[in-house]
C-alpha cells in the first residue's frame, strides 16, 4: 500500500497530467505577460485586444458544443445576448422593468447560471435532431431571441437599448478603463479554458467525443447521450453568457442590433478556422478574424503601408509599361495612405475570401487538436463520404 504522501503525489500528478503539459505555470506566465504589456498599448489597441479576448472566450464556449460534442450550433449569439441583457436589465438606470441596481458580482455568476439553464432549455427540444437540422433550429432560436429583444419594449426598451450601466467595482474601485475590462475578459477566458480543458480530459469529455464520432455507438456503449449533450449545451451556453455579462458594462449599450447572426457566424468561423477542439486554434482564429479587420483600420497600418510606397511606385511603373504595350489602360494603384482605408472598407470581402481560402488549404483548421488530426488522417483515405441515403 502506497504511503499517503505518494498517493497524494499520484493524485496530483494525475490531475496535472490531464491539463496540457505545464499548463498551469504557463497560464500564469501568459496572464502576467498580458497584464504587464498593457501600458505599452493605448486604448485603440486595448479595445482590439479586448474584442479578441472576448471572442476567444466565446470561441472556447462554442468549442465545447461544436468541437467536442460535434453539435453544430448557429445560434450561439443568443447566450451572449442573454448574459449581456441579464446584467443590463438589473444594472441600467433606464431599465423599465427593474428599479435600482444589483451588484455586478452577483449578476456575473447569475448570468453563468441562467446561461446554463437556457442551454438546457434549448437543448431539450432539439436533442433528437442531428447535423444540419440542429444548425437551422439553433439559427432560428438565435433569431427568435433577437426579435424578442427587439420587440419586448417594456423589458428591453427594444432598439433604444439599455445603457449607462453600473460599472463593476472591486473593493470600491470602479472598473472603467479599456485595459481594466481587458484584464477582466482575459481572466474569464482563462477560467473558461481551464474549466473546459478539465472537462475535455475527463469522463465527460470522452463521452462528448464518443457522441461526436458516432452517437448510436456511444449510446450502445452505455453513455447517456441525452445527459451529456445537455451538459455540452449548458457548458457552452454558460460561457457565452459569461462573455456577454462582461461585454455589457464595457460597451455600455446593450441593444438587439449587436446580437445578430453575424456574431454566431464569426464565433463558429473562428472555432473552425483555428481547428476544432483546440484552444490555440481559437486564439489564432480570433486574432485572424477579429483582430486583423480591426488592425486594418489603425493609423499604424496606414503608416506602415505608406512606408511601402516604393513598392507601389515600382508597380505603377510596370503598369505604365504594360499600358504602353497595349491599350489595356490598367488603373494605377492608389496612393499608399489610401490602402489602409480601402482595406478597412473591404474587410468583410477579405473576411469571406479568407474563410474559403483557409478551408481549402487546411480543412482541419490551422491548429487542429491532435486527437482530431489523427482521426482525420486515419479516415480520409479509407472512408470516402457516402451518398445521401447513408
Amino acid at each position, binding site marked *: 500500500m502506497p504511503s499517503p504522501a505518494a498517493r497524494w503525489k499520484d493524485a496530483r500528478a494525475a490531475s496535472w497530467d490531464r491539463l496540457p503539459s505545464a499548463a498551469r505555470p504557463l497560464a500564469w506566465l501568459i496572464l502576467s505577460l498580458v497584464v504587464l504589456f498593457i501600458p505599452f498599448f*493605448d*486604448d*485603440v489597441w486595448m*479595445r482590439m485586444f479586448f474584442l479578441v479576448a472576448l471572442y476567444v472566450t466565446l470561441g472556447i464556449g462554442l468549442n465545447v458544443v461544436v468541437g467536442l460534442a460535434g453539435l453544430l450550433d448557429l445560434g450561439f449569439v443568443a447566450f451572449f445576448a442573454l448574459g449581456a441583457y441579464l446584467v443590463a436589465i438589473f444594472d441600467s*438606470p*433606464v431599465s*423599465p422593468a427593474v*428599479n435600482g441596481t444589483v451588484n455586478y458580482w452577483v449578476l456575473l455568476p447569475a448570468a453563468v447560471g441562467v446561461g446554463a439553464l437556457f442551454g438546457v432549455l434549448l437543448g431539450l427540444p432539439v436533442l433528437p435532431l442531428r447535423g444540419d437540422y440542429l444548425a437551422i433550429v439553433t439559427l432560428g432560436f438565435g433569431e427568435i431571441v433577437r426579435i424578442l429583444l*427587439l*420587440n419586448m419594449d417594456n423589458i428591453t426598451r*427594444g*432598439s*433604444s*437599448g439599455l*445603457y*449607462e450601466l453600473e460599472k463593476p467595482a472591486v473593493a470600491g474601485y470602479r472598473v472603467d478603463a*479599456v485595459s481594466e475590462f481587458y484584464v477582466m475578459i482575459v481572466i474569464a477566458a482563462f477560467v473558461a479554458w481551464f474549466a473546459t480543458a478539465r472537462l475535455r480530459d475527463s469522463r465527460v469529455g470522452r463521452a462528448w467525443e464518443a457522441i461526436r464520432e458516432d452517437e448510436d455507438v456511444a449510446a450502445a456503449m452505455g453513455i447517456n447521450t441525452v445527459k451529456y449533450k445537455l451538459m455540452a449545451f449548458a457548458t457552452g451556453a454558460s460561457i457565452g453568457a459569461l462573455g456577454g455579462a462582461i461585454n455589457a458594462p464595457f*460597451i*455600455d*449599450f446593450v*441593444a438587439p*442590433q*449587436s446580437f445578430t447572426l453575424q456574431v454566431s457566424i464569426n464565433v463558429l468561423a473562428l472555432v473552425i478556422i483555428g481547428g476544432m477542439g483546440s484552444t490555440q486554434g481559437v486564439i489564432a482564429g480570433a486574432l485572424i478574424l477579429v483582430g486583423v479587420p*480591426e488592425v486594418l*483600420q*489603425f*493609423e499604424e497600418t496606414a503608416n506602415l503601408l505608406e512606408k511601402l510606397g516604393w513598392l507601389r511606385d515600382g508597380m505603377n511603373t510596370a503598369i505604365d509599361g504594360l499600358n504602353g504595350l497595349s491599350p489595356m489602360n490598367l488603373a494605377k494603384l492608389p496612393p499608399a495612405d489610401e490602402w489602409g482605408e480601402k482595406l*478597412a*472598407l473591404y*474587410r468583410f470581402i477579405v473576411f469571406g475570401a479568407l474563410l474559403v481560402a483557409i478551408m481549402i488549404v487546411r480543412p482541419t483548421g490551422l491548429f487542429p487538436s491532435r486527437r482530431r488530426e489523427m482521426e482525420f488522417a486515419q479516415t480520409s483515405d479509407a472512408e470516402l463520404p457516402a451518398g445521401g441515403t447513408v
Partner: protein
Amino acid sequence: MRVRGHRSRIYLAFVAIVAMAAVFAAACGGDDDDGGSTAGFSDAGYKTAGLDKARVVTIDSGAAIKIGISSALSGDVKGLGVPIADSAEVAGDGVTIKGFKIEWVREDDLCTPEGGPAAADRLIKAKIVAAVGPICSGGTRASLAAFDKEGITHISPSATSGDLTSPTRAEGPYVTFFRVPVLNADEAAAQAKFIRETLKLKKAFVVNDTDDYGKDLAASFQTSFKAQGGEIVGTPEGYEKKTTDFKAIITKIKAAKPDVVYLAGFYAEATPFLQQLRADPDTKALVFMGGDGVKNDELLTGAKDAAEGAYLALPGGQGSQFAAYKSKYAAKYKGDAETVTFGAEAYDAATAILKALEKVAVEKSGKLEIDLKKLNEEIKKSNFEGASGVIKFESNGNRAGAIVRFFQVKGGKYVELPAK
C-alpha cells in the same frame, strides 16, 4: 398623554417614511421621462471633462490642426455617412487658422454602439482638437464618455434621440457634446400639426422602422397626433431595416381605412413600401407622410411615379450659407448638396468648430496653442447664420430653435410647400 405621544411618534415616523418613499419614487420617475429633462451643463460636468481649468494643446509650426469626423464610412449607413463627412470637410476648404492648415481625420463609426467609442479612441489618438459626429444616436451615446474624458468637444450633425443630452448621471449632460439637428419629438409635432391643420385629415395609420430613430419618431408622432385631435387607426406596424415585403402591412392598412399613412423610417424601405402601396388599387391614392429619413433623392429615382404626391417633412431650415456650402460641395464632390441628408447640419457643425478655433487659437513663437476649455466655451456661445439656419445652442447642448419644412413630390421633384 404618554400613549398619545408614543402614537404621534409612530405617526411621524410613518409620515417620514412615506415622504422619503415619495421623494425616492419621484427621483426614479424622473428617469423615465425621456428627453424631458432640461438640465443644463453643470460644474461637475466640466470637471469630468477636465474643462474646469485650462487644457492647452500645442501644435508645432508647420503641422496642421486636426479635426475629427466620426461617421459611417462603410456598411449599411454608408450612403448617409459619407456625404455627411464630405459636407463637414468642405466647410474647411481654404480655411487656415493663424496660418495653420486644417487636417480632417475621418474614422468609421459604422453607426453602431461598438463602432462609436472605437472611432472616438482612434480620433483621440490622432490628436484631434474637436470633432464632428458621431452621426447615429446609438454610436453617439456609447462614445459620449470617451470624448468627454479627453475634453474633446464634438458636435453631432444628426443624432436625434431625445435623451442624449439628458443622461442619468449625476453630473448632468456631457459638456463636450453639442448637436445641430432638430429632435425627433419636434419633427413629429410639426408633422402632426401639418396633417391636422394644413391637410385637415383625422385618421392616421403608423408604420415604423423598429430601429431607434423610427421607433422614437413614431412614438412622438402618435402622442402629438392624438394631442392635436387626430386618431390613430389600426395597430402601428413595425418592420426591420432591409425589409422589402410590405404586402402584409398594406393589407392591414386597407382594413383600417385611414386618411393618411405615416411612415417613420428611411428611404431604402420607404421606396418599396410606396411602390407596393401604390400597386394596390385600394391604397393607390392614400395620402402619405414621411420624415427626414425618407426625403432623399434615391426615393425619387427608385419609386418614380409611386412617390408622386407624397408629403415629407425636413427638419432644419436653409440659411444664408447654404449657397456657399452647395457650390463648395458641387466643386469638390460633384454632387448636389440639396440631396444630402444632414449635409447642411454637418457643414454648420464644422463651421462652428472652425469659428471657435479662430477665436481661441493663440500663436506663440511659431507654435499654435489651443485651450480646449476656451474652445468648448466658444462653441457653446456659437451664434451665426449657417447653411441650416441660425446656429445657437441651448444650455444642455441641444440646438436652439426648431424649424421644420414640408415638401411634396410633384413631377418627380421635391417642391417646398409655403410655410403657414
